[in-house]
């Protein structure tokens, strides 16, 4: 692992029990500043649980979450969080949704709103600032949701299957868009996905988790140079990494064919 001495985000023995089930057995993870890390693994292996703990909406049964070395366990508002559902408020305009973080704290002044407008224009929603979310397509809604996350000004972004509900073409466009946003905004991203291609294409490292109990199985480096052209998807290195991840995920259930690849 190449994490520096002081990682941006660190989990120390983070554990979650729900009654009898061990949703997340003691887990350690360190993410460097500016790194893009994906998390893959079958349903129920604790990915969302881990995110809820990092986001501070779930108090873990044990362990600590550190950001820049500060203990933020159980504290909300420290990271940007985005889910598969865009969760835009239908009664708010696109702009108000983007600045929701400030709005919730009663601090959505002209400065915050101007910043939201700039974000919307920079990333292709400039014509929809005053529209309600119902006027947006699925891809545009997810973009608005990501802008809402960006406008929180947090160094760490947690994206939980953000493109899972999109059709494959839109999803591919969104992946490239996300990479451009990430490169420009210099944030640290932890990204949950079911799509192994997506994980490899986007990430510096892929965390492979397995269920019962939920745990990190292995962490795979993705040494494909950036910027990554579309052709990277078919390179031998890409295939090797992908195969390794598939083996890890499916080795305990050889009867199952990989469904998402």
């Amino acid at each position, binding site marked *: 692992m190449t994490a520096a001495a002081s990682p941006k985000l660190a989990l120390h023995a983070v554990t979650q029990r729900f009654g009898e089930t061990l949703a997340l057995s003691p887990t350690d993870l360190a993410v460097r500043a500016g790194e893009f890390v994906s998390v893959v693994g079958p349903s129920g292996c604790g990915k969302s649980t881990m995110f*809820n703990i990092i*986001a*501070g*909406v779930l108090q873990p049964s044990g362990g600590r979450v550190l950001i820049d070395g500060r203990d933020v366990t159980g504290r*909300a*508002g420290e*990271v940007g*969080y985005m*889910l598969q*559902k865009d*969760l835009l*408020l*239908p*009664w*708010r*305009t696109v*702009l*108000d949704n983007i600045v*929701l*973080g400030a*709005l*919730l*704290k*009663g601090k959505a002044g002209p400065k915050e*709103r101007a910043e939201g*407008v700039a974000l*919307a*224009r920079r990333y292709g929603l*400039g*014509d929809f*600032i*005053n*529209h*309600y979310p*119902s*006027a947006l397509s699925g891809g545009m809604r997810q973009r608005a949701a990501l802008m809402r996350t960006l406008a*929180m000004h947090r160094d760490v972004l947690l994206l939980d299957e953000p493109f899972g509900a999109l059709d494959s073409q839109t999803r591919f466009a969104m992946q490239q868009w996300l990479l451009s946003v990430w490169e420009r905004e210099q944030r640290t991203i932890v990204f949950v996905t079911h799509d192994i291609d997506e994980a490899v294409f986007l990430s510096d490292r892929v965390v492979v988790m397995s269920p019962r109990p939920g745990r990190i199985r292995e962490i795979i480096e993705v040494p494909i140079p950036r910027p990554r052209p579309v052709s990277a998807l078919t390179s031998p290195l890409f295939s090797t990494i992908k195969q390794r991840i598939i083996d890890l995920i499916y080795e305990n259930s050889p009867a199952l064919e990989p469904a998402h690849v």
Partner: protein
Amino acid sequence: MSDRHALLLRLVYPLVALILVIAGWALAVDVFEIPRYVMPSPMDVANHIADDWPALVKGFGQTFMEFLLGFLAGAIAGFVFAVLMDASRPVRGILYPILITSQAIPIVAISAALTIWLGFGLAPKLVIVALVVFFPVVVNVLDGLASVDKDIINLVRSMGASRFSIFRHVKLPATYTPLFSALKLSATFSVTGAVIAEWTASTSGGIGAYLLQANSRLNTAGTFAAIVFLALLGLVSFLLVIAAEYWLTPWRSGSKARRWSSSYWKDETGG
């Protein structure tokens, strides 16, 4: 604009319906030679309205006030009840039986009891009207509060929102749609409630009282005049709710924020 066109059509259809009903009524009275004391012609009713205009308008105003104040009181009380019931399980447990019981007793019976307690003034009428609105509002607002996606609560909590902020920005607006469907349903029933209240406490003044009086004198033109005004009242009450809904829930009637709203970003230079 097709928006305007659609609006015009929406006004034209009811107008055509109204004309058809009046024409059919006039024709029926004429063709079947129905005696005037059984069924007056539209012209008779119009004449009566013209003759007794001040009393009818005054009655309309009185019943309208009973409706409006009672309606607002009932809607607000219902809303507060729902919020309290949503916030606390014990409160819900205690209030639910009271709510159901309030619904099970016929309005007429309550109305009679209220005259004993509250006399013959405005108060018992307001309470009756309020009771009519109360139940649908509680049920629908409770529904709205319960239907808020748990993920969105989680999301805004992860953004550091306080409980109050979650209520104000997420839960409260989620109640508007079900709230207004309850208000639309109960608007016309509330007018009926006001009439019933005027009957039990048969004081002079409102259109309901006017109707009762005309009826007891076999004054059919007067009865029908009162019916016309009651229909008008029902219509006005419904339209008021529609108008309030239009102002308060702009996201349901358009794809963009309105220009004058505080949400509207006015600098159009780049977008």
